[in-house]
């Protein structure tokens, strides 16, 4: 299970290293972000657990013994929204590069800069 999550991470890294298109690099970043979030939640999963939200009239001791880990969920919740902010920042950079050099190709941009 962890290994499959790492395969997802590795696909993102390959996309960042080997692809020339800027949007492909951004897509690699997005995939890495998903895989890291998923990994944190996977670490906190308890087999046969219940969601960390107390229902009305539920016994607290039973809830504490069966609930999944709430801490990674809270941290991932903030990290998803931050990921959206960084994605918008990267998109702004890509638009600006396209306006300046009229291409999305990384090596072409390197060549034009001289």
């Amino acid at each position, binding site marked *: *299970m962890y*290994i*499959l999550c790492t*395969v*997802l*991470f*590795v*696909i*993102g*890294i*390959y*996309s960042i290293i*080997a*692809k020339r*298109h800027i*949007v*492909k690099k*951004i*897509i690699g970043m*997005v*995939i890495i972000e*998903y895989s890291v*979030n998923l990994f944190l*939640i*996977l*670490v*906190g*999963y308890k*087999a*046969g*657990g219940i969601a*960390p939200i*107390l229902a*009305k009239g539920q016994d*607290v*001791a039973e809830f504490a013994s069966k*609930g999944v*880990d*709430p*801490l990674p*969920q*809270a941290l991932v*919740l903030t990290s*998803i*929204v*931050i*990921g*959206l*902010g960084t*994605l*918008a*920042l990267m998109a*702004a950079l890509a*638009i600006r590069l396209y*306006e*300046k050099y009229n291409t*999305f*190709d990384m090596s*072409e941009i390197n060549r034009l*800069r001289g």
Partner: protein
Amino acid sequence: MTVFYVLMVFMIIGAIVAVETKNMLSAVIAVGAVGVGASVIFLFLRAPDIAITQVIVEVLSLIILIRVTIRADNYAIERRQDNFANIVGLVFVGLFLVFAFWAYKGLPEFGNPLMRVSSSYLREGTRETGAANIVASVILDYRAYDTLGEAIVLFTSILGAFVILRPKGRKHTSEKDKGSFGIIEDKEIKGSR
């Protein structure tokens, strides 16, 4: 248990399609498929908060990525293959997988987490904070500094986007020289043309 493996394989196939396809629009939509698969897997991992947030963030990021790719010539770029980068990428990927497989022996097994702090959150959370949603009580009560930092990061990122995209400050360069749209390296571009 099987549903996790099926969804993970679905996400991996979506990621491979997103990375390898030539058409940019279908690559972006494949990323959307990966995100929706992630949200369904969050739902099965008993994390409804994150499932809601993931779905809706996925829609917004799809809009942003389509805005980036919508008016560009995307086909001509990946004709030439860059063999050196491919080989370096594959070697790095292999090394990373080997080390990750090595490192996962130290982690607790899947479905059997180590919960020292979290079990006390689960036990005391409702009594101490009065909120039934333990995730909300962790975000906004126990670890509210984290949320404050998140607000600052989001603010900084929109500040950066505004500064990068603003149209002022380069009007005079475009009047002088319509070909180039640069601020900083204007002279260099003129020199190279």
